[in-house]
């Protein structure tokens, strides 16, 4: 029971982290390769602190990992638990498919 609750907290946090357009853009940028906080800030016109805040949220769910490289902090995609999130969506999709199938069968049987 406790495990299940923990699992959902992580899932909620992952989805929350993905819910912001800037954070998604940061992930898309990092999918092309590592970048420093400064490099991430440029295209978004954000302050360094603004980017740090977004990166921090992504870091808490392991979507991003950061490391100090010289004077800069380099960000790259993390080991994220996207398997949990994709699994959730797959179950969700199947539940709705089942509903549509059962309803279709019901309409057809009545004819």
């Amino acid at each position: 029971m406790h495990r299940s609750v923990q699992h959902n907290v992580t899932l909620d946090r992952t989805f929350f982290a993905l819910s912001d357009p800037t954070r998604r853009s940061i992930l898309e940028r990092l999918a092309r390769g590592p970048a420093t906080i400064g490099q991430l800030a440029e295209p978004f016109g954000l302050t360094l602190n603004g980017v740090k805040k977004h990166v921090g949220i992504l870091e808490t769910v392991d979507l991003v990992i950061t490391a100090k490289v010289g004077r800069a902090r380099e960000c790259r995609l993390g080991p994220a638990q996207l398997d949990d999130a994709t699994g959730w969506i797959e179950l969700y999709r199947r539940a709705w498919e089942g509903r549509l199938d059962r309803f279709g069968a019901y309409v057809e049987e009545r004819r």
Partner: protein
Amino acid sequence: MIDELRLERVIDAPPHVVFETFLTDDGQAAFYGQDDPGWVLESNCDLRVGGIWTITFGSSHDRLYRHRHIFRVIDPPRRLVLATTESRPDGSSFDFTIEFTFGPQDGRTLMTVTQSGFPTEELREEHGRGVPNAFARLARIIQARA
């Protein structure tokens, strides 16, 4: 870009039959039902724009899901739009929009179900909970990672 979850099925009956059936108690029960013994299903539907349709379902009384739908659009026999809150057995909940369409296809019906996330970023931030507008966002990130 995938911004939603979309499912479809061709049903061997014309759109007005499928549409009307969907809004009957038995049609809704078929949609949310399961053959499992002990499956719980309770529905209360106020069919009008702005009306609330609450449906509680699940494998047992301690594992219940609830959909609270508000009818936003009722356009017979073509289209239904619902603003929905899903509450889950673990106590979490999230809001999304469901659009059903019923299109004619050679005397049959192409029924689609499209789900999309919160109507606005503000609303989602305000609610600050659950699984906001998840499908697309995740799909996009996963594609980017692949």
